């Protein structure tokens, strides 16, 4: 394996390790729950992306084929990380924040965490 390829893979691995560590360190260090939501959902997902890039380069150089599994995993993780973050934020809001403490939603109905949207919409 050429030196350039080794350097590329090692750099991707080290950067992704630092990202993963920073994500979990933020999970411990930040002060309240909604702040803590940011560190793992962004930094750790990026870290896993780095690991998958490194393994794609590694297996391409080892076998000569591009393996699609890593792409599938990273695509799946990058799609689902915002959804889980949204769900966790909704669960936190529904249990810890009362609707009257929030600013008004400036719409016809309240925040969707607390109220169901009206049935009248034509696109349902």
């Amino acid at each position, binding site marked *: 394996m050429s030196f350039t390829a080794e350097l590329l893979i090692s750099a991707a691995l080290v950067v992704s390790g630092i990202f993963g560590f920073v994500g979990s360190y933020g999970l411990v260090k930040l002060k309240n729950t909604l702040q803590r939501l940011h560190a793992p959902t962004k930094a750790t997902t990026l870290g896993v992306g780095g690991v998958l890039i490194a*393994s794609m380069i590694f297996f391409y150089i080892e076998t000569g084929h591009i393996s699609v599994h890593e792409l599938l995993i990273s695509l799946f993780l990058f799609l689902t990380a915002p959804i889980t973050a949204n769900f966790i934020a909704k669960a936190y809001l529904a249990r810890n924040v009362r609707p009257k403490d929030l600013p008004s939603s400036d719409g016809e109905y309240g925040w969707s965490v607390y109220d169901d949207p009206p049935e009248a919409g034509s696109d349902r």
Partner: protein
Amino acid sequence: MIEYALLFAAGCYGIALLLDLWRIAVGPDDADRILALDTMVINVIALLVLYGVWRGTAIYFEAAMLIAMVGFVSTVAYCRFLLRGDIIE
């Protein structure tokens, strides 16, 4: 050189798993614990891929894929249980 980088990344993710475990133990709210579990799932995926690169075999990607899917579904199920008191209404 790759061996040292692999060792460094695996060490980082190992310490990250311990930090997540601490947040699960003390986390003041249930949302914190769900978040820490979700982070643990992502870290374990990274560790599996690292092990696959270390052994030079691609067979661990299937396991990583399955863990990614099950982790997502379990996080959504936990949050839905907190939100509605029920998972399948």
